[in-house]
C-alpha cells in the first residue's frame, strides 16, 4: 500500500510476534502470555492492547464491530472503528450477528456469539491477583503452582462482609479448571456468557503487555462459595425502549426530581429487539 503505513498499522514482524503469542495463549487457556508490545497512536486507556490484538488478526474480509459499555456510538468505540477503517479499509457494522470480529470494552453482546466470530476484549488490568500481591514475580508463581487460596479468602471476605454487591464488575473466573482469570471490567451479568462460548475470546492488555485467551467450548466458572453462590444482577424493571427483561440495563435519570428510567446497555440488541416486537 502506498498510504504511508502498513495494512492494520503494525509492521509484519510485530504482527508475526503477536500472532505467535496469540496461538500459545489459545493453547494455554487463561494464562497471561507476555508480548513485546509496540507503541500505538493512541494513549493507554484507549484500548491499545485490544487494538494490537485486533490489528494482528484482522483481514480484508473482516466485518468489524466495536463497542464501549455496550454502545457502538461512544467516542472510544467510534475512534477505534475509524482507526481500523483508515488503516485496513474494512467494513464495519453495529449488528452483532453480522460481525466477524468484535472489539469490546466492558460488555459482552447480548446476542449469542457463534463459532465463526472472534471477540477481543480491551484489558485495563490483566492480573486478577494484583490487589493481593503487587509483585509480578510473585503473582506469576501463584498462577504457576495454582496457589489460589489467598484469592478465595479475599473474595469470601468481600462477599460475606459487604454482600454480593461489592464485586459487580471484573468478577474473577476460573478458566478450564486451571487459571484464575480477569474477565475485564464487564458486569458479572456477562460472566455466564463466557462459559462454553462458541466464539474464540481474546484479551489484550496494552500497558502490561499481556495476551490471554479462552478457546471456544471452554469451561469458565465464576468463583463462588457454598454459602454464597454466584448470582448475576437482576432488575425489577424492563427496558423502557424495547421492553426486554433479559438484557443488562443501565439506569438513567430523566428529570430534575431524579426519576429513573432503565434501558438496555447493548444498543444493537435494543434496536433489534424493538424491530422484532413491532
Amino acid at each position, binding site marked *: 500500500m502506498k498510504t504511508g503505513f502498513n495494512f*492494520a498499522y503494525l509492521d509484519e514482524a510485530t504482527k508475526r510476534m503477536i500472532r505467535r503469542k496469540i496461538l500459545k495463549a489459545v493453547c494455554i487457556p487463561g494464562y497471561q502470555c507476555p508480548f513485546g508490545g509496540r507503541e500505538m497512536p493512541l494513549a493507554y486507556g484507549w484500548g491499545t492492547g485490544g487494538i494490537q490484538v485486533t490489528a494482528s488478526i484482522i483481514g480484508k474480509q473482516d466485518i468489524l464491530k466495536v463497542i464501549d459499555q455496550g454502545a457502538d456510538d461512544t467516542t472510544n468505540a467510534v475512534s477505534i472503528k475509524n482507526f481500523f477503517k483508515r488503516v485496513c479499509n474494512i467494513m464495519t457494522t453495529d449488528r452483532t450477528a453480522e460481525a466477524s470480529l468484535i472489539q469490546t470494552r466492558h460488555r459482552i453482546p447480548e446476542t449469542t456469539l457463534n463459532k465463526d466470530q472472534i471477540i477481543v476484549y480491551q484489558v485495563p488490568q490483566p492480573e486478577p491477583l494484583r490487589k493481593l500481591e503487587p509483585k509480578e514475580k510473585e503473582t*506469576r508463581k501463584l498462577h504457576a503452582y495454582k496457589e489460589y487460596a489467598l484469592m478465595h479468602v479475599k473474595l469470601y471476605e468481600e462477599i460475606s462482609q459487604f454482600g454480593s454487591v461489592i464485586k459487580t464488575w471484573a468478577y474473577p473466573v476460573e478458566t478450564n479448571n486451571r487459571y484464575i482469570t480477569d474477565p475485564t471490567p464487564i458486569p458479572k451479568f456477562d460472566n455466564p456468557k463466557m462459559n462454553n462460548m462458541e466464539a474464540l475470546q481474546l484479551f489484550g492488555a496494552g500497558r502490561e503487555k499481556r495476551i490471554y485467551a479462552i478457546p471456544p467450548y471452554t469451561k469458565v466458572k465464576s468463583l463462588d462459595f457454598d454459602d454464597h453462590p454466584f448470582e448475576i444482577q437482576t432488575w425489577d424493571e424492563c427496558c423502557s425502549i424495547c421492553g426486554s427483561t433479559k438484557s443488562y440495563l443501565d439506569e438513567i435519570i430523566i428529570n430534575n426530581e431524579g426519576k429513573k428510567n432503565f434501558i438496555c446497555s447493548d444498543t444493537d440488541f435494543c434496536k433489534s429487539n424493538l424491530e422484532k416486537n413491532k
Partner: protein
Amino acid sequence: MEYIGYQDQTHSSQNMFRTILKATSFPGSIFTVPENLETDNVLYSSTANIIFTLFDIDTKIFIDSEKISKIQNFITFNTNANCIEKSNHCDFAIIQNKEFNIENFNLGSDEYPDNSSTIIIEVEDLINGEELIIEGPGIEKTKSISPTNLPKNFQSQWQNNNFIFPRGVDLILTCKDDFFCLPRTSKVLK
C-alpha cells in the same frame, strides 16, 4: 534458490494465520490452507504456509528429517529463521521421521509455559490411521482424529504431555494442503 513464498505477504500470511488460529481453536478439525505453495517436494504445502506465516529471524527451528539440509536451506533462505541442533531449545520443530519423543522438546516452565515448542509433524495421511478420540477446550463434546505415522507410544507420550500442564508442547499435523492442531489441552480418550 528462488523465493517461492507469498506474492502478497501481508494478506496471504494474515489469511493463513486466521486458518491456523481457527485450527488451534478447534482441535482435531481439518483445515485446508488458502494457497498452494510449491516446494520441490521438500515440504508439504501446508507446512510451507505455516513457515511463511510464523517463522522469522526471532524464531529457532529444529528439523528432524532425511532432507534436513534442503529444509534448512529452504527455511533460512525464505524466512531468516535460525535452524538449531538442540530440540529442547526450539520454538518450532519440523518432523518428517516417524519416531520422535515429546520430552526432547522445549516444554516451557511453570511460570512461562508459553516458552515451549510447537511441533509440526508431516504425516502420510490425516484420516486413515488409527482412530483416537479427543476432548478438551475447543471441542464441543468429543472429536475423532486418525492420523498415520505417529510413534507407537504416542498415547503415553501425549498423556504425559497432558499431565505436566501448563507445561507441554503443541502439535500441528500436516499432510499436503491440509492440517489440524493438537494443543496441549486436548486429551486422548482412547
